[in-house]
């Protein structure tokens, strides 16, 4: 009973995991350098930023929404935090300001959608432009750089030889999984996406929880901004362009349905890793970055085709 239940709930994720493993084996055969500890950690580190955003995006997409603003929100959060940090704000408070800026933008998205009744696509499309513009205005278009070593530890530090961004990513996923499966917020996230009307009539405060979900997605974009800023040693107002599409792709490859009501964060993590591994492998193989785009786009399409075939098959 237990295994069947696991298979029913996570079967789709096993499929994605199998894809990730198969991909890794192929790359291992093609290029010996792929399967080394340092390279794998490198992949994980490069994946971390998009993966953290994609965790929040998973919540949003399970509610049958979408957040196009994550890349811009990341840039805005990054420059706000960097400016405050250089202005002398203590490290802890500066980090909070980064997450807080993302959270703030996300909550605005959420309010526009749940109270203003705007379609998520439109509300976050607007925020995408507003936050990007705000980041540019805030910095007059220039990068903000020159941080202390203690701040840079967020990107270059290690815990038990694992890079800090990877540790943060894993922590985010463990917490996100817990929230999604064991808390009221998680339960309501599925209920809102699965059947909003039934959720309302079951007494769920749909407006509040939908707003919180967008806030969560924005807050995680802020967290991703901190890591990116630390890694580049610079906060760029033009950072994070196209990150929304990478995040959405990771969620979708991971088996979360754009119709809402279904999905898991671990699927998303595997989806993000597939994209990271693929990029890394293609680079190691010397494939040009132009061709890489074609390959990655095709993988997204094929993954979703498999996903649909899997779901039809179960009917």
């Amino acid at each position: 009973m237990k295994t069947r239940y696991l298979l029913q709930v996570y079967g789709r994720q096993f499929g994605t995991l199998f894809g990730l493993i198969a991909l890794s084996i192929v790359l291992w055969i093609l290029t010996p350098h792929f399967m080394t500890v340092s390279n794998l950690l490198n992949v994980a580190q490069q994946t971390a930023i998009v993966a953290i955003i994609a965790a929040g995006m998973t919540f949003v997409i399970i509610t049958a929404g979408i957040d196009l603003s994550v890349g811009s929100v990341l840039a805005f959060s990054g420059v706000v935090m960097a400016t405050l940090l250089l202005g002398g704000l203590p490290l802890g408070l500066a980090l909070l300001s980064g997450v807080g800026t993302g959270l703030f933008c996300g909550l605005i998205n959420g309010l526009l959608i749940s109270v203003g009744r705007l379609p998520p696509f439109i509300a976050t499309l607007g925020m995408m432009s507003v936050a990007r513009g705000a980041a540019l205005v805030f910095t007059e278009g220039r990068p903000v750089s020159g941080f202390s070593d203690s701040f840079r530890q967020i990107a270059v530090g290690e815990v038990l030889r694992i890079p800090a961004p990877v540790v943060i990513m894993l922590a985010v996923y463990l917490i996100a999984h817990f929230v999604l499966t064991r808390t009221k917020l998680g339960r309501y996230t599925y209920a809102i996406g699965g059947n909003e009307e039934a959720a309302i009539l079951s007494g769920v405060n749909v407006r509040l929880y939908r707003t919180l979900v967008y806030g969560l997605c924005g807050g995680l974009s802020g967290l991703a901004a901190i890591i990116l800023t630390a890694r580049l040693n610079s906060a760029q107002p033009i950072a994070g362009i196209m990150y929304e599409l990478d995040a959405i792709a990771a969620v979708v490859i991971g088996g979360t349905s754009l119709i809402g009501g279904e999905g898991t964060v671990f699927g998303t993590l595997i989806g993000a890793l597939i994209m990271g591994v693929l990029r890394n492998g293609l680079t190691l193989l010397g494939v040009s970055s132009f061709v890489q785009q074609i390959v990655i786009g095709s993988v997204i399409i094929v993954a979703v085709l498999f996903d649909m075939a899997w779901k039809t098959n179960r009917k």
Partner: protein
Amino acid sequence: MQHIRKTFPGVVALDNVSFELRKGEVHVLLGENGAGKSTLMKILSGAYQKSEGEILIDGQEVDIRSPRDAQGLGISIIYQELNLVPHLSAAANIFLGREPLRYGSLLDRKTMNREARQILGGLGIDVDVRRAVSDLSIAQQQMVEVAKAISLDSKILIMDEPTSALTEREIKELFSRIRKLKAAGVSIIYISHRMEELFEIGDRVTVLRDGKNVGSHELSEITTPDLIRLMVNRELTNQFPKIRASQGGEVLKVEDLNRKGILHNISFSLHRGEVLGIAGLLGSGRTELARALFGADNIDSGKIYFKGKLQPARSPRSAINSGIGFLTEDRKKQGLVLALSVRENVCLPSVDKFSKYGIVNAAEENNAAAKYIKELRIKTPSLNQKVTYLSGGNQQKVVLSKWLCCQADVLIFDEPTRGIDVGSKAEIYELMNQLTASGVGVIMISSELPELLGMSDRILVMHQGRISGEFTSEEATQEKILHSALGG
């Protein structure tokens, strides 16, 4: 159809079912919810694939892999939930996917409208084919579906609960059209739970039980009790096992409730242990009244007292917190989150009870869900089965569990037995008895007069948003209720 078998994850839905349809007959398919009627029809119409067995048409074995294959073979299905595109016109819906064209690419609207008018006219239906179907009544929409089936040259027409949303008069018209189709040689498979209808319209009947065919009979040679016995495999002595509970104090009081254009000057009260029936035609404001009581819709004026206290906040949450539960008319659209499990649905309104600091205690939830699965005899392979895989009757029991789990003091049932088989109906009635015995006040909205008369202690009748009549169960008759419902 011969030796059809269909399995779903964890369930055998159909087990070696054979079924024969003759030319020009109305063949009734009968069975409790979950007996396999819908599954069998979905296989015939190409929505599902059979796991084993064969389908023969005019003696030829056919392979049906998609709804398109089925259409090509002259098989059409009209679902209970109609399948029309609301914003398109009636004509556009009839010709959807095979629009007549001019110059090979431009829509030929004239021909389309003319032919649509012809088909509908042939059925004796007078609707403007250019109007969007969302502007038509349910009965008219259904006729558009029938017209679509006819325009496809269907030889086999499957109708799933076609009368569930129709008025008496509309049903009569539907039946006269079915007879016309029959005379034209169309074979009709008719699924319904309304016994009295079957004898009026059907020629033969096949009864399914637990995914097996338990017999086909001429309807002229069989009686209602026989059919019920075949369906449930036990005698149902009394259709409405009403037990009168002793009535306690006033639990709900409504004073002068108004919602512009919808509800006017509604006042009534409900006592503990009472079943208050609400009758009325479609559109009389019954469901709107329920939604207003539950806080799902706004009101313009009026007061709602619950256990003697004025209800200030107006939202489903506050209604639930004060102990009101609402079993909606449409369980799939409003009652359940189909992609969630039985456990998660049962605990959805009461999840606060099972959580601390926002973290849900899974063990407590499991216990609660297991309790109701046992008490209400919900047929499910596990607590974690998605409710989408359950049959209609079992889904309804999950909805009921939701509110039992909240320990509501007032339960509003909106069409509690619509589309549910006799066995589950009796179980729902028995639950109502248990509820009233424990002091719960029940409001039951229903279109089925026998049910209202059989189960209510008192009946309110609504007409155009007003209460147009009130009867005790002793004085109420079908005639009196109908008279009030029509505004008399």
